[in-house]
């Protein structure tokens, strides 16, 4: 069998970015929750919150280290595996990556060191400031990465000259048509991921009667924050993002919503069985007119289907993957609202401590937001195919021509093995830390 360097490079990118993308959402979400918890610990002088801060701070540190270790690969991989892409977009795409490093990475990693190791070395105010800076840095980091990726989705502020995309308007490139919508939607997803981790761990503490005082407080915070974020992921951020896709990337919209033939009063498909080439959707159940309304604010509006776009000469993305990923993500998102909504109801009615089944459900739900994040990422990236830069550069023209397929195969196997090991160890250590539970405070003498 002939090895295909394009396929292998795509596989490697999907593997490395997918694995990396497990950690940043947790880091960002947890960091903001810790900003809240550390604030309460400091201002109310409440020992439980301080213990919670130390306990979840260690989980943050572990997760952050994984994000850093796997993130280094991303910073270099555009050059190693996507040299033609890097050459074509370098004038624009490199800038947000450099901005991320300068304005975000330095901030998060420097202040995380201060947060984790400096609790007894600096004042409480400075210590709280350090976790705030971690959260702000992590958020800025997400912003610049989404700027870079959004430019691939909806390129703006450039002109193609000298065989490459050259910057014409910096702010137009940064705030291209999809940046804001995608940033807000992703941020709500990161908060869900952090909140579900915290809620699940808190539920475990309550069930095992280990650090109950800490667990009941963090459970309350994480369920409330989780509910707000889950709702926000659907509305306004998810809705806003869908509207933006409808206008700027009709091929992606048609594929993710399963609209084969364009129509007025297009239905919103709730469920259906998709198949590829020719793209078909069978046994579909939908709400008539709703897609038209969501996309254009008018239930009678005409929405282009996959076939229309093809006839207009636009290649469309793989249908089955885009459709299924999107619908699974939406399904999970609805489940998050239901679960956190129920949780807040149990909190308000003071029944949560005895709802053991619900607490157990929270534990098993910890990974679900990460699954949803991965699915959302797949919709974004697969839904853009066959383009790597929408309607400008095809993925098949972007990979490094000078790297042999065998070399890429070697690095895939290597990353595959290393990441498998890291994933297993991360889970092992995470579970171990959670089982240890929040430790009692030791009064340390100031050095």
């Amino acid at each position, binding site marked *: 069998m002939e090895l295909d360097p394009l396929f292998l490079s795509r596989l490697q990118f999907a593997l490395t970015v997918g694995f990396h993308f497990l950690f940043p959402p947790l880091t960002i979400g947890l960091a903001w929750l810790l900003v809240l918890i550390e604030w309460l610990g400091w201002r109310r002088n409440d020992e439980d919150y301080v213990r919670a801060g*130390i306990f979840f701070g260690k989980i943050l*540190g*572990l997760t*952050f*280290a*994984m994000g*850093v*270790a*796997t993130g*280094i*690969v991303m*910073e*270099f991989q*555009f*050059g*190693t595996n996507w*040299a*033609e892409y*890097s*050459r074509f977009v*370098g*004038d*624009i795409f*490199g*800038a947000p*990556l*450099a901005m991320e*490093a*300068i*304005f975000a*990475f*330095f*901030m998060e*990693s*420097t*202040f*995380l*060191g*201060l947060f*984790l*190791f*400096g*609790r007894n*070395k*600096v004042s409480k105010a400075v210590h709280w400031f350090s976790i705030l800076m971690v959260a702000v840095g992590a958020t800025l980091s997400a912003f610049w990465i989404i700027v870079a990726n959004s430019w691939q989705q909806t390129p703006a502020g450039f002109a193609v000259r000298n065989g490459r995309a050259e*910057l*014409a308007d*910096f702010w137009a490139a940064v705030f291209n048509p999809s940046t804001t919508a995608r940033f807000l939607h992703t941020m709500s997803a990161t908060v869900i991921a952090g909140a579900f981790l915290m809620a699940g761990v808190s539920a475990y503490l309550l069930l095992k009667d280990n650090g109950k005082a800490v667990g009941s407080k963090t459970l309350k915070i994480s369920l409330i924050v989780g509910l707000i974020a889950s709702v926000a992921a659907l509305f306004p951020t998810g809705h806003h993002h869908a509207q933006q896709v409808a206008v700027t990337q009709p091929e992606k919209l048609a594929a993710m919503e399963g609209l084969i033939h364009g129509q007025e009063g297009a239905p919103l498909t709730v469920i259906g069985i998709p198949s590829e080439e020719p793209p078909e959707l069978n046994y579909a159940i939908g709400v008539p007119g709703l897609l038209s309304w969501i996309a254009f604010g008018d239930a009678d509006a005409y929405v282009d289907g996959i076939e229309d776009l093809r006839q207009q000469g636009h290649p469309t993305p793989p249908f089955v993957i885009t459709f299924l990923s999107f619908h699974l993500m939406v399904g999970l998102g609805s489940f998050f609202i239901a679960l956190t909504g129920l949780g807040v109801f149990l909190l308000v009615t003071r029944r949560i401590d005895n709802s053991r089944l619900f607490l157990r459900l929270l534990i098993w739900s910890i990974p679900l937001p990460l699954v949803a994040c991965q699915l959302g990422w797949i919709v974004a990236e697969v839904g853009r195919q066959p383009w790597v830069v929408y309607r400008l550069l095809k993925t098949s023209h972007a990979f*490094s021509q*000078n*790297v042999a397929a065998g*070399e*890429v195969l070697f*690095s895939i196997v*290597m990353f595959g093995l*290393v990441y498998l090991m890291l994933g297993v*160890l991360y889970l092992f*250590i995470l579970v*171990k830390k959670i089982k240890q539970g929040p430790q009692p405070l030791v009064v340390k003498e100031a*050095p």
Partner: protein
Amino acid sequence: MDLNTAWFLLIGVLLTGYAILDGFDLGVGVLHLFARDDQQRRIHMQAIGPVWDGNEVWLLTGGGAMFAAFPLVYARVFSGLYLAFMLLLVALIFRAVSIEFREQVDDARWRRFWDWAFGLGSLVPAILYGVAIGNVVRGLPIEADGTLNVYFLALLNPYSLLVGVFALVMFVMHGAAYLAARTDGELQQRLARWTTGAWMAFVALYLVVTVATFFTAPYLFEGILGNPLLWILGVVLLGSIVYVPVAINGKAFTRTFLASAGAIASLVGLFGLSLYPRMVPSSIDLANSLTIYNASSTPRTLTVMLVVALIGMPLVIAYTAYVYTVFMGKIVATKDGY
């Protein structure tokens, strides 16, 4: 000074920052392989625990800045040296997680494994950086159409390996000086001996590398002898090298560390000065070289990013310096590292 030169200088500053800051982390990692006991290894990890992460960001920033300012270098060189980069990435991954993982399980074999991961994860990059510089000095086989593809083993030529060992020795000296400044008693004396030993090897190898460079890449010496910058950097280098043993003798280890940092900075400076305005010379024909002009982004991007860097980097340096002052002082080893 034109924009392209400013960016060449700025990337030089980022790489110098990386070499000085993560340089001592790498040195500590290599010394880790030679530590006497668990207590000492714990001190190693704690000496860099709060800061290594921020130090490594200098490399990421260098990579990002290279992409933004000189995309053609980023695209051509990174793909042309594919396997070398993959090896570097795996080493850096292991190094990063070993610091986090080591103290998580109370088991001697577990710790030994991560000690090795940390040590080798530091040793390999330390040598690879030198090998990379050696290969850039020799020139890489860049074709007339700008493409480049180097077989991995071809990178391991004698000259580049020599520079690799030189870099290793330099980082060990730097890391030993850093640890000596942060420890006391018998361990400090031991580290002082390591610093002295590494310094001797550093001086010897420096002479060998200079002579070897003269024969390997004579073009580097053309036209820079009259450049006053060369002489300034040379004086700083010489002064730093001479001052290292003086400071060790006076048990002033922070100064030893600063002198070693001065030596690293002036070496990177000399390397950049002799390359300028080339970034990656071509071994096939110097006319094919990637230069700061033919590999750069547009003036608009360079201008925007220069503004960003001039606003951002002073901030970074300010808070990094602050955090360093918080963690100054002698290390008291604790079990969980927090």
